[in-house]
């Protein structure tokens, strides 16, 4: 993992230099600014934690597109989690909703400034260490799938 990551970074660095050469340093800075912004504004760092019956995490903003979504799917380490085990709640959503309740007639609205907590029941419990959590979202107005994936270490429940 480390060597491929280094390779990617080195390729990125080369492309960054290329970009800077052609369009000036501000172009690289601008791009980095947007990338960092997305990194900070979607997944709430440190929110991926173990719960009594699974885990939780928080998305501060919808990834890349706001709106009403008619399909929502969660995958952990590439495996889909059944929709009835994924609960979402936010100030706007109101009462918690399960992912399998989301559909064309009953879409779920994800908007900026309305952090959404995801609570996921897992059986058996998720092992410790790092995991990949992916969210697939489909909007009826613009159907191509929007997806977001974060890699993070699963933290233990806070001790009382």
């Amino acid at each position, binding site marked *: 993992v480390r060597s491929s990551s280094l390779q*990617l970074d080195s390729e*990125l660095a080369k*492309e*960054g230099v*290329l*970009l800077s050469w*052609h*369009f000036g340093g*501000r*172009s690289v*800075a*601008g*791009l980095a*600014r*947007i*990338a960092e*912004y*997305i*990194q*900070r*504004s*979607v*997944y709430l760092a440190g929110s991926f934690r173990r719960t009594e019956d699974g885990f939780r995490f928080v998305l*501060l*903003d*919808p*990834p*890349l*597109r*706001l*709106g*009403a*979504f008619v399909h929502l799917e969660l995958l952990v380490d590439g495996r889909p989690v059944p929709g009835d085990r994924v609960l979402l709640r936010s100030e706007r959503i109101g009462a918690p909703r399960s992912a399998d309740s989301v559909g064309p007639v009953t*879409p779920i*609205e*994800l*908007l*900026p*400034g309305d952090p959404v907590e995801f609570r996921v029941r897992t059986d058996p419990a998720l092992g410790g260490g790092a995991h990949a959590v992916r969210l697939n979202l489909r*909007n*009826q*107005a*613009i*159907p*191509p*799938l*929007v*997806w*977001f*994936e*974060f*890699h*993070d270490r699963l933290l233990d429940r806070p001790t009382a």
Partner: protein
Amino acid sequence: MSPDPVAEHEPILWESDHPRPERPALVTGLEGWGVLGGNGEFSWLRETRGARFDWGGVYVHGIRLTGPWVLQWGLGPEATPVRPAMTGIQVRRSRVTITRRARELAIREEVLFPPNLPGVARIVAVTSNLDAPATLHVESQVRPLLAPVLVEGLQPYEFTVEPLHGRLRVRAVGSSLVLDTDHPVERVRLDGVDWAGVVRRGGLARIDHGFTVELPAHGTIGLRFLLWGGVDGCVHPEEHRAAPGGWGASGDWVEQAATDWATWTAATPVLRCPDDPELEAGYGLARGALRSLYTRTEPEMQGLRAGYPWYGDIWGRDLAWALPAVLWMNDAEWAEASIRTAFEYQAPEDLPLLAATAGEIPMQLSPGPVFLYGTSDTSIYFFDRVRRWIAHTGQAEAILHEHREPLARLRRWLDRKMDPASRLITNGGEADRLRRLASVGSHSYGIDSPDMTIWDSADRRDHAVDVQVAALEAEEAYAELALGLGDSTGSWASVRRAEELRMLIRTRYAWAGERYLYDSLRRDGSALARVRPNALLAVSAGALGPAAAREVLNRALEPDLNAPWGLRTLSNRDPTYDPIAYHEGQVWPIATAWAAQAAFRVGLPERGVELLRVLARSYLREGGLANECYRGDRDEPWNSCCLLGFSVAPFLTTLFEGLWGLRPDLVHGKIAIEPTFPSAWREAELSNVVLGQGTLALFWRDGTLSAEWRGDRPLTVVHGGRETPLLPGTARVSLPRERT
């Protein structure tokens, strides 16, 4: 007595004596814009991708600085709240005027984007109805956002608040906002806590600025607020130790903004259609709407925004569709700067990080600069746009000399897009390369758009018909450009290639069952049998023979594609039709304009005017704005910006090139004029059309066309098969036809 030129050219677009919160009211400037609701508040709820979201606020350099932004009033030692009710709103291009009234106060407010400043001003006059002097408490309440519109779903959660020359400046994501007033601020609270004037980092939901002023009995006081900011490096706060430009100039802002608008409008062509007043009114509104999209954020970044409120950046494709209309608005200089901007950011070589292939024009361009590539068609249009620019100005040598290298890169880019087996241009897969950029660090994200034609949420791989038509027009343009570049071999190659594409469109795309054109062909040769309006572009480009062209138009105008409020992006008989899917059934005004242009091309002016009138009525109904799109099943905007250049620019271009049939060629000192008017029309005029260094006026009465030409060189008019030379200073002369 001559009419007031400012009132004539900067009229009220709409007004109301009661709140209309559902209606948007825009104030626009070169560096940004403001969005208000029709209740005069910086708050406008709009259905967006199926959810209602508040887009009200102030935007500079593509950054949403704030929204909402509320002024609150209190009177007396206890600051007793006064809540004036809105009693009137007047919306003009240059400003929005709001009046409010309470028992104790009358308030008049002008909201505008002051010329050459990066922010929105609120110029307020407060009149007392009280019999004694009173203390007026003013609170300006701002929600900091600093959210780049480029990434629409996000807003920052951490802000830095810092002092700036005694004022408060908020920073996040490489951008900042400052609120200025012309009265000393006495208190600043951050989320309800007094600010001590020191640097603070963290979350921030609300800023309150407050001050008090003495209000004389039955007297009026003036207050001024300016909320400004933008992208670091594009705005320079060190230059603004007072408000940008100083408050001394603010007294003239309203007049200056109105005069700027009126001056621009007065310099544009005048269209008179006494037989169709709606069309004439639509022209005036579309013209102003186009101008409100102009942007210049840095010397090297000039063009048009795609739309409001959420497409506030320069989008290469949208710019390309706007440029012909910009030229017809006598703004060759703006078109020139826009094309120069597009070429400035042309990819000089493959840049996989940004999904660029060598020679490509950006999909999207924001101040910063931040830019991305990855469309199948944007670059193709620019051959024709350079040709048009030359044709309007006649400055072939200078233009081609300056842009020789960008054109050569474009040429190579187009050659790479050709599939050697089918000889067709390929679309699809352009955005796949963006994934590497989107997977930096521990997060990855993306949109699975496999194809990036003009309907970029639809999968139309591998050879969409409109991409072939654009390539045909590109080759025709390059055939002319190459001659000017001294490359006769390249010119002939383009002539042959254009003919090849024309034959491929006629033979490979012919859909006998529908008497239409297939929407696309797959790499294996199979057809994508969907009825979309894109085939109409083949009619307008002259890619089809007369009979086939008329068949295609007639098929497109059947009710499954042509709703009473415009053309759908997909037939409602298609199994995948969805009336609220952006590119799978919604009605798009740009598609309606395509149909109008096709109707004029095949000699059906009644149909052409009828379609243009659909658009004109929407501009009238929408108060001089033009929705991006509407539901496919009813005449109601859905997932729609309230103004898109796509919705006005092709309408304008069609008036000049379809209705009036104008095709300038100033390089050879010529213009072809073949108007096609409805049979019921008796009269039409088009004047103040700038071509090169001259101005043309056309008059059509009872079938006879006459012209006036004021220029320093002769102009030859080609009309009805005859050439008529107009000498400089030609008074009105009739233009004979070879045949009637």
